[in-house]
Structure formats: C-alpha cells, structure tokens
C-alpha cells in the first residue's frame, strides 16, 4: 500500500533501532510518554518496544478518548434513552465501556434502548432525516481530532432545520490533560524524560499549544506520527534532545502537522463550542477548561439542555487501577483485576475496552511485555 508500507519498512526500522541503541547513554533512563492511544496501539501492534534498548521505555498516556470518559457521562446518556426514549448514536468503541452498576450501552441496547453504532457524523444526520419521529442524540466523544466533524454536523443540522437531532458533547482538549499529568509532580507523579506528542490532534491544533511543556516542565516534546517508523524516529529525536540537554517542541510529523494547525477547523470549533469551566476525566479527576460544550447560539441543539436527567454519583469498580494507569503511574500488569477478571471480553475498566487502551494493548500482547517498573 503506497504511503503506508513506506512507514512500516523493516530495513529502516532496523537502522533506526541501531541508531537509537548507539546513541542512548547506558547510564540513564529514557522514560518517554506517548500521549496518544494511537501510539500505544502502534507500539504494541508492531512490537516497537522490543526493538528499543532496555533503558528506553514507553510510558502510556491518557490519550484514548474512550478511556478518559467518566462513568457519569455514560450514565447520563443511558438515562436519556430511559427517561426520554431518545435514539442514541455513538462510535463503536463506546458500546462496551462499563458504566455504573456494570451497565454498558451494549447491554442497554439488548434491554431495549435504541442505541445505534455509527461510523461517521454523516450517519447521524441521515438517521435524523430518515426517522423524523425519533429524537436522535449523537454522543460525541474524542479529542480535537474528532471535534471538527461534530462541529460540521451541528452546523449542518442547523442549516437543514433538523428539529429531532441534538448533540451530547463530550469533546475534550489535549493540552489541559497533558498539563494535568505533568503537574502530578513529586513521589505521587509519574517520572518522565520526554513526550511523544499527538499526531492527529496536532494536525488540528498545530505544534504551538505544546510550548508550555518545555517551558514550565523542562521536558522535550516531539510531535510524532502514528506509523511505527514515525514512533521510532521520534524516539530517536527525543533521545538526542535529552542527550544534548535541549528542551524543545520538535515536529517529526511534518508531513501533516504545521505550527499553527488547521485554521478552518479551529474556526469551526470556536464558532460552535465554548470551553467548559471544568470537566471530569476518568483517572484525572475534574480538570479546569479541559472540555467543550455547545455555545449558547446552539443551545437548541444541546442534548444536555433538551433532555435533562439526573444521575447519581458513580463509583469505579473496586480494585480497578485505570486511574493510575491513565496517569502513567502503574502498568496494567500491576492491577489485580488485569487478566484475572478484567479481559477484553469482560472489561471492568475503560482501559481494557478500546484497542488504544493500555490494558487492552498489554492483554493482546501479554506474552512479550514483562512489567518493568521503570515508569514509577
């Protein structure tokens, strides 16, 4: 496959691995956090960690939109189907995420709720057009990557005058989450030497929003593509920054990411959304200005305002280490539930659901990844 195979070339991988092995200082540790689940997935799927020297470890970050969605938001969506009889549309990964009381959208669907798995926001518009008698709610989730398509769908719904479509916005922002992770300093926090920055998110927001990382936290950042060679080249760039004592934002993924991002997408987002004062993240708690809600001009399309529900306080399943894993403090294998009662077939925590979740990635590659303890 053109434009794909080039970034998975075995020969180049060997050369990069050799370069990294030659340049790492055996006397120090290189703890590199990949923020995105897309990187986590690539690292496991292609066996990138095995190609690294033993003192270079990837620490898995919270950049999996399914994993950081708090239970309360799922409870809220399910309450909307129960109390208001809405048709709830969402992306497939969300169907199996455990909510309160071991409920999932999949189970709610089996029990009679009208929950539909969609592939794109255009499917949601089509359902709303085709079934005018149904109240359709799109449960929008994701980082900045999936936010512009939601903005477009909102504008389209307004333009078409679709009265039976509304949006339950759970879109979250990357920089505040990164700041939260890095702010957990001291013995409580994760020890890191560098950050592999998001690739798809950065196509939208550009490289500038990461400037606070070197400035305030003294850590180098390399914006990295999602293909395995991208990850390896970015690791090499981070090793060089660390060795040279440089603390900069570098851009490995220059074929898609610029300094200022996608102006059109950012303009759409600014028009349709406002930043919430605070939003709950699974594992990270309530983070200020870390998520988006529909702007007042679009209040009539806001499902939270159209279908008010009350949800009780939610509790994580006892023993589930997703919060610590999402902060990079623990490895999945350090969770008592991992592999015993929590597997992809029967996930207890969100990190076991999506293929971008650290637990699911560990589970799928469990023969090869001994716990290193290096990331503590």
């Amino acid at each position, binding site marked *: 496959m053109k434009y794909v195979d080039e970034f*998975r070339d075995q020969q180049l991988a060997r050369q990069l691995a050799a370069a990294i092995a030659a340049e790492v200082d055996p006397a120090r540790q290189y703890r590199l956090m990949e923020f995105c689940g897309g990187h986590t997935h690539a690292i496991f799927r*292609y*066996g990138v960690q095995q190609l690294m020297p033993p003192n270079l470890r990837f620490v898995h970050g919270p950049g999996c939109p399914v994993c950081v969605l708090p239970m309360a938001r799922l409870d809220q969506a399910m309450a909307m189907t129960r109390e208001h009889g809405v048709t709830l549309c969402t992306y*497939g990964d969300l169907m199996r995420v455990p909510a309160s009381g071991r409920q999932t959208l999949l189970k709610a669907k089996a029990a009679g709720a009208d929950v539909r798995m969609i*592939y794109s926001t255009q499917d949601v518009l089509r359902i709303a057009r085709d079934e005018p008698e149904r109240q359709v709610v799109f449960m929008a989730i994701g980082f900045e990557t999936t936010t512009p398509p939601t903005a477009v769908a909102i504008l389209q719904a307004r333009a078409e005058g679709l009265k039976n479509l509304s949006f339950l916005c759970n879109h979250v922002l990357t920089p505040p989450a990164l700041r939260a992770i890095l702010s957990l300093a001291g013995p409580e926090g994760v020890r890191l030497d560098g950050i592999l920055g998001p690739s798809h998110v950065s196509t939208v927001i550009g490289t500038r929003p990461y400037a606070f990382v070197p400035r305030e936290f003294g850590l180098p950042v390399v914006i990295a593509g999602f293909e395995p060679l991208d990850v390896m080249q970015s690791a090499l760039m981070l090793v060089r920054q660390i060795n040279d004592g440089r603390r900069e934002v570098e851009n490995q993924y220059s074929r898609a990411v610029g300094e200022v991002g996608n102006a059109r997408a950012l303009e759409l987002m600014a028009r349709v959304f406002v930043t919430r004062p605070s939003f709950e993240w699974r594992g990270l708690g309530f983070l200020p200005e870390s998520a988006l809600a529909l702007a007042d001009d679009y209040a009539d399309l806001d499902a939270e305002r159209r279908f008010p529900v009350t949800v009780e306080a939610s509790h994580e399943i006892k023993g589930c280490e997703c919060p610590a894993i999402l902060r990079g403090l623990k490895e999945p294998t350090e969770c008592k539930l991992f592999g015993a009662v929590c597997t992809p077939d029967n996930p207890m925590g969100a990190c076991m659901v999506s293929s971008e979740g650290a637990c699911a990635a560990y589970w799928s590659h469990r023969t*090869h990844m001994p716990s290193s303890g290096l990331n503590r």
Partner: protein
Amino acid sequence: MTARSRFSARLDLENGRVDMSHGAGGRAMAQLIDELFKQALDNEWLSQGNDQALFSVPPGRLVMSTDAHVVSPLFFPGGDIGSLAVHGTVNDVAMSGARPLHLAASFILEEGFPLADLARIVASLAQAAREAGVAVVTGDTKVVERGKGDGVFITTTGIGVVPEGIAISGDRARPGDVILINGHIGDHGIAILSQRENLGFETAIQSDSAALHGLVADMIAAVPDIHCLRDPTRGGLATTLNELAQQSGVGMRVRETDIPVREAVSAACELLGLDPAYVANEGKLVAICPADRAETLLAAMRAHPLGAQSAIIGEVVEDPLGFVQMQTRFGGERLLDWLTGEQLPRIC
C-alpha cells in the same frame, strides 16, 4: 390433474410479496413450495413429496453439520444468502475430509419480502447446490410478521461420508506441523462491509464464497494424513488458529509476510481500522499437516482452482498456554489473540 392446476393463478414472482398465508400450511404455502422451491431445487427426493427424505447411505462414517445464515445485505459482490447457505454448510461438512451427500434447508421469511428476491435467492441456492453436486433433499418454510425478521434467514444442514483412513480433527495439531491456507484472506468480510449502506464504501472486492469439498478431496488424495482442516469464517484466520491451538493444546507461529492478503483488502482494512486476520472468509481453509508432507500438500492445493494462491504461513509449536504469535512485517512479534466482541473500527 397436475399439482400446479390446484392453484387459480400462478405466484406473482414479479411484484408479489410474502404474506402470512405463505407460512400457514394452506394452499398458499403449498403453491409457494411447488412453484418456487420445488421448481428450482428439483430432485428425486424432494419430489417424493414427504415431510422427510428417504435415501440409502454409502458405507463409512457419516458427518453432519448445521449452519444458520443471517447475512446482511442479502445480496453482495460474489454471492448472496442462497449461495452462502450452501457453501457454508458444505464446507463445514468437508472440513472433516468428508464427501458431502445431501442438504436440508429451512427458510424463515419475513412478511412483505419480495417474491422476486426470494426467487433469486432460491435460484442461487439451487445453482450452488448443483455445482457442489449435493441435493437439497428436504426443507421447511416459515413466515414471521413484518419487523420480526430481516427479509430471509436460511438454515442448512448437511451430511457427508468420510473416506476410510482419514482422521481429520481440530485436536490433532502437533508441534512441528506446518500451517497452510488456500489463498487471500478477508475478501468476504470486506465485500460485505463495502455493501453496507452506512459505509458508502465501494471496492471491487468479491466475496470468496465457494464450496471447498473438491479442493479437500484433492488434498486428502495427495496427503491422507492431514491433521486439521477448518474454514476461517467469522473471526477470521486469527480466531481459527486460536481454536485449533486450544483444541490441540499447542501454540502457533505465523509470518505476516507469508499470509496472502489482496492489496485492496489491506487498504480497506487500513481505512476502517480493521485487521485482515480477523476478517471473515467463506471460501478459505486452514490446513495443518506433518512438516514432511507440507510441500506435497501445497502442490496439490495450488493445482486446484480454489487453491492457486495457497501458501505455507507458519508452524505449530509447543506452548501449553496455546498462544498464536505472528512475526510482523515490521520485524516485531505480536500475539494474534481471539477476536473480542465485534471487530470495531478505532475512533481516532
């Protein structure tokens, strides 16, 4: 008086629709069976007109298998639910090394389903059965109310006879054995996905749906001591390898670069966030045989039209945990685990 003259007017196969009377046991049902099913499937057993087919069986061990077909959409590139219902069950029977003898077919029809579509499906089923050399010797039809089915569901049951000296079973994989496949993986799943309206995704990929018993016959003629045969349908190659590994209490190692995947299937999988190893096939088989017979088996497979792209993809290894590992194109190793849930695309 012939059977057909019992009915005042012929079935309207152009504009007619299935209604509840077609399943009620009365004249309308008899007419549907006579004019549509018997007409297409015509054979000596069906025309006995009994509720069961009476036939003698050749000596040997009989195998029996059943398969329900609920595919959506009903018509897809390279086949439809009719041909699939024959191939699915013929293949399940054939994976024991058996020669398939007869099929039974039962149809669950939804009220309102166009008779023209039903006729097309039955004709396709009949043609697939004829090509496979098996007869549909008995059948049943039921009708459910509109909204209680999805057009048509077909369950087929097949029997076959296993030749002397053949002992193919999922628990016979042994460390050192070689793993083969008869061609490109993932064609069926991608052909189906490309037709789903909510994907709006067009490709030239055709389903690989095919009856494999002819290929199996050639394979056991060349290498009677084949240890395992299985068709990697739902859950794809990865799931089948895991089933065989678990049943035999062994591990497996396969090489990604040796597994045949069409460029278009790879590209579609890339776009949809799918892994071809988990995508369904309907005309593929995985064979496991002793290492010293592997080249002979490969040659026999390649000599058959349904095995021209056959390849050796890996080996059986000792592993009490039953892991299936894949050496990736990239040079790393990864576990090919069981499929979890549905194969869902990633969201970012």
